[in-house]
């Protein structure tokens, strides 16, 4: 039997042209081809491959690239996450107005659709890139890398990345940011940190926004902080109202502190000079 095609032709010179059909009327039946197309008695056709591959590995590699690129340019990136309507864009607009002329700032806006938020940012004079994720529920490091291509990064500046409004999906996706800031408005429940623990566990700072509405809502600042600390002992907390401007100074100080820490963390550059 021919060991290549399994036919009964013992002549070694025969071709494997396959003009003969493999239909039922040929009297030619194929067995032993198996799932892999070949067969060896006693051996299973399937095999096991041990991987141990991180499913987020690709995103994390892009995030590392972004981080290296940002820090190489002396730029701090902040990933702002929250549920829709917490006031992220208002906070950003007010922050940009106050930083204008002192620190170079640019913004990456993530939304499923529209460029409304980027338009609001550009109205302050800051450059903004809008990423529309389509049906996507979060930004990933690859998208942010492309957005960074379109921004000029100036030494000592900030890039604010406004993630898609969603307290669930952005949690697992590192974008290459220096710090992650979760914004919780007081019109939401103070138990949100327990309901959506992942995003609070992965954030460096929690901002309690719309604090001017506290007298009108059943929101306990103490409870919110205690809940957040239960999922993340190290989380820092600021309370402010982006609309009235109360507490914004604390936020600007926090940003300034972050920049000081970044400069302090790069003594090797100075030593090399």
């Amino acid at each position: 039997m021919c060991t290549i095609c399994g036919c009964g032709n013992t002549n070694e010179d025969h071709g494997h042209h396959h003009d003969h059909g493999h239909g039922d009327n040929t009297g030619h039946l194929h067995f032993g081809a198996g799932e892999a197309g070949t067969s060896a008695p006693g051996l299973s056709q399937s095999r096991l491959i041990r991987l141990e591959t991180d499913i987020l590995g690709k995103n994390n590699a892009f995030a590392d690239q972004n981080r290296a690129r940002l820090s190489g340019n002396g730029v701090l990136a902040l990933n702002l996450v929250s549920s829709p309507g917490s006031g992220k864009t208002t906070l950003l607009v007010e922050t940009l107005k106050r930083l204008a002329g002192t620190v170079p700032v640019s913004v990456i806006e993530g939304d499923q659709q529209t460029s409304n938020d980027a338009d609001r940012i550009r109205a302050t004079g800051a450059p903004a890139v809008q990423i529309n994720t389509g049906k996507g529920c979060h930004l990933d490091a690859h998208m942010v890398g492309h957005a960074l291509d379109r921004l000029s990064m100036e030494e000592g500046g900030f890039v604010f990345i406004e993630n898609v409004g969603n307290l669930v999906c952005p949690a697992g996706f590192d974008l290459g940011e220096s710090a992650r800031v979760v914004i919780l408005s007081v019109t939401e429940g103070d138990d949100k940190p327990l309901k959506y623990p992942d995003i609070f566990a992965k954030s460096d700072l929690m901002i309690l926004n719309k604090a001017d509405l506290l007298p009108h809502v059943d929101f306990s600042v103490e409870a919110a902080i205690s809940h957040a600390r239960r999922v993340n002992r190290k989380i820092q907390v600021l309370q402010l109202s982006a609309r009235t401007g109360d507490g914004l100074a604390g936020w600007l100080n926090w940003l300034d502190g972050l920049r000081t820490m970044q400069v302090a963390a790069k003594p090797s550059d100075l030593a090399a000079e």
Partner: protein
Amino acid sequence: MHEMSLCESMLDILKDQAARDHFSRVKRVCVDVGPLSCVEPEALQFGFDVVMKGSLAEGAALEISRPPAEALCLSCLETVAVRQRFDTCPLCGSEALQVTSGEELKIRELEVV
């Protein structure tokens, strides 16, 4: 539903691995999904079936293992099992727990032909 994009990442990994290890079809994918990994196993299963359609892993079985999550209690210094990030220490009741494992999200093994 970020599980969908995680399934797309899994498909990328399978394709890369197929080129490296010379296989044409995936019959089974074994993954470890830690209880603190921000992934819902049912959503991952749903996304897997949808994303793998028409690929080398169409019809493949997804086996999800859930390795236990552990934390170090900073009060009694014992390593304890936790199920959620806000669990308290089952031994001393302290809230000062530092999670040490349970965030795994990886492909452990493939069965291929």
